[in-house]
């Protein structure tokens, strides 16, 4: 089957039942999306399919029809995505393992709501677990990213 990932096409030979996450990580070599739980309970595996955030650990690859975007594909022209830039400026990450998923959820949130409230952030980010407890900085970084995006940075 053929997958489009971060703007590139890949032909893979996979059982259609294989979760998208493992097709990305083991077959295509995109290790940015992380394995955390396998049951869509932690959000570490979050990627976009046609711009919509999905938990790739629980989505059979055979059901994927749209273009996939991972954390490795959101920076453009050598420039970080505003959400990545905000993450950098707020020094969000600790161990960093969940952050690919956090960032992908935050990108999807900001695509939908340009200036999210605390409640919007709670709703959009509640499925992304962080064991290091970076939540206060994630909240601050999403607000900073909203400003960066509006300013066109």
């Amino acid at each position: 089957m053929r997958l489009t990932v971060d703007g590139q096409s890949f032909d893979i030979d996979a059982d259609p039942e294989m979760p998208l996450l493992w097709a990305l990580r083991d077959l295509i070599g995109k290790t940015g999306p992380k394995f955390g739980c396998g049951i869509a309970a932690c959000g570490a595996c979050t990627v976009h399919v046609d711009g919509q955030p999905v938990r790739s650990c629980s989505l059979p690859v055979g059901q994927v029809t749209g273009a996939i975007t991972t954390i490795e594909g959101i920076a453009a022209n050598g420039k970080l995505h505003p959400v990545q830039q905000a993450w950098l400026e707020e020094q969000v990450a600790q161990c960093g393992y969940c952050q690919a998923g956090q960032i992908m959820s935050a990108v999807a949130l900001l695509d939908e709501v340009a200036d999210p409230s605390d409640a919007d952030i709670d709703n959009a980010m509640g499925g992304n677990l962080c064991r290091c407890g970076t939540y206060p900085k994630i909240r601050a970084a999403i607000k900073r990213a909203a400003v960066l995006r509006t300013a066109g940075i």
Partner: protein
Amino acid sequence: MASLGKIARRTFLIGTAAIAGGIAVGYYYYRKPFANPLEADLGKGEATFNPFVKIGADNTITIVAPRAEMGQGVSTTLAALVAEELDVSLDQVKVEHGPASYAYYNSGIMEEGGPFAFFDESMTAETVRSGLLVVGKLLALQGTGGSSSMRDGFGKMRQAGAAARQMLIAAAAQKLGVAAGDLETADGSIRHKASGKSVSYGEVAAAAAALAPPAQFRLKDKAEWKLLGKPQKRIDMLAKVTGAPIFGIDVRLLDMLYGTVKMSPRFWSKPVSADLSKARKMPGVVKIVPIETNYGHGFGIIAENTWAAFKAAELIEAKWADPDYPLDSAAIDGVLKRALGEKGSATRDDGDVDKAFADAPRERIIEADYAVPYLAHTTMEPMNATAQLKDGVLDIWCGNQAPTILRQLCANQLGIEQDKITVHTTFLGGGFGRRIEMDYALYAAQMAKETGGRPIKVTWTREEDTRHDAYRPAAVGKFQARLGDDGLPVALDMKLASPSVTAGVLRRLFPSISPIGPDKTIVDGAFDQPYSIPNYRVSGIAAPVSIPAGFWRSVGGSINGFFHEGFMDEIAVAGKIDPVELRKKLMADHPSAVKVVEKVAEMAKWNEALPAGKAKGMAFTLSFGSWVGEIVQVADTPAGIRIEKVWIAADVGTALDPGIIEAQLISAAIYGLSAAMGQEITFADGMVEQSNFHDFDAMRIFQCPVFEVAILENFHKMGGVGEVGTPPVAPALANAIFALTGKRIRTLPLSKQVTFA
């Protein structure tokens, strides 16, 4: 507090372990430096000055930060210690973890291993401390734990930078034909003030590294620091926001196989029978092999991809032998409660506690029973390791908190020499004590024997990870206090029982050492608190339960912080004294503690009345050398109790990076809140009942309170940072819930008795 004579008679576990470990060598060995492991693997044009500094002819400056980076920012601050003295900026250096080597021993991890409180500076305590520093070097453990990395590294990392800088200056003086005293350094180059001539570090590195290291050098005064004491940008941040392959689970090698493990769900048990036929038929499965290690027994599944291995593991049908521990949580609880009936060993025994209670009027006595459950670490990155065994040489890639132990255990497992093993330590997707265990590495090493030389990445499912941890043990406590006429306690008796973490770790990591003597981790966080009470006894009893118990962020403090400070709140209520005032009075002998309590109370406006439906609770714990006071504010909402705000004041002695320290204090508090609110590991039929984040969850962003942190530097010794925020947060929350509802909760998790929003 204990005298040296008493200690010698009783022994205590960590010291005993060190001595029983066969470290019968003298002072000469202690003084002898370890070889520099960087010499073996220098690139073209690279020169090394000591195990921590490499400089290339192209002026590439590499600093080795040989501690596990598990999110706590250790690689950034260790690099800053070297960079400060080397006079380079952090964005100018490459930071590497480096190889497994005894040269990277952590003696700080042992320093507080004796049965003394951090503030006990008696000759006995100091003598044992200096002895344990020596033991630390003799054991040469390259370990990350005990919030010790900065205390261990503060001297030697700065010395490494200063020595290299001085050698570079000497070589530059020769090259430029000027006096060394007329040279100054900045940003990786050396300048001659008078002539304006300059050379880069790289240009003189080779010549400088050939010089003898200076016998004497001066370290900068704190006032001269450019990097230390100020928040630095983390060196790992860019990689972590771009999804770079920095974790063990991201390792990709040519011709690599994938795998997983299915270990006995009953600890230590062997399979009685197993039917592997269905699993073997799973497409993509290459081979299923038995795994026999000191950590347990089971099967390794070798496959073409991780998912095929996971599916095959589910299809293994095995019967496992009965365990040698009680089958369920109720029976385990029974063992713990029976242990409380024993006399135990008193680590603190001030005054005469028995006498103080003998004639106490009933109405002056308060009593309480406390309990906490087993807990899993659940690092975000499930356990994994990648191994390749080819031509008798093992390469192993994984996050780990003890590379030299890893190397030794893998050598034992495979029956090869340690020098045939290369450990590649990656970043850790969380550690919290879990990756000081070595099961993930041993299983991968064992499976690498079966792949014909191909590398194999072995990833555990979350279910396997949750059910095969080295758990924070369950614990119970029985407490009694006698109040005086002024409401202050005149006597406090604390009895604590839990399975021994130290004995558990020895069984897995150093099976040749038999644990003897009391385990200090059972009483840590209770016996060593800066309260002065005339009659004050803290005793610990090791309960015989062989479920793997391990180091869980703040270890004993995670248990005893809750016990001690919950009961202290009960004493305050019974004595009709404000909890903040009670602590200020009882800790008056320790000005650092009083200042922390005053600071956190001031930040939280403790004395101001709150509107109805809101309340605050406070707690204080001294752990890993840092004095930490926390206040939690809760609110009653229609959806349940909401944790609104947490204030933290922490005296860490010397704050090397306030940004990272603040992040760690908040992180540790959230880790503790997650456990206090809802986590427990329970057992049925000898197996863990929980399996994944649906039944072992942690705090989510919508539950996360607002934090306010103050970092103080009053005490004259440096404290640790990574764990110290955890112990006081559970009791502060429980005390706040008492203030809000009148319900005193003495058992965790709190969610068994209240609902959280």
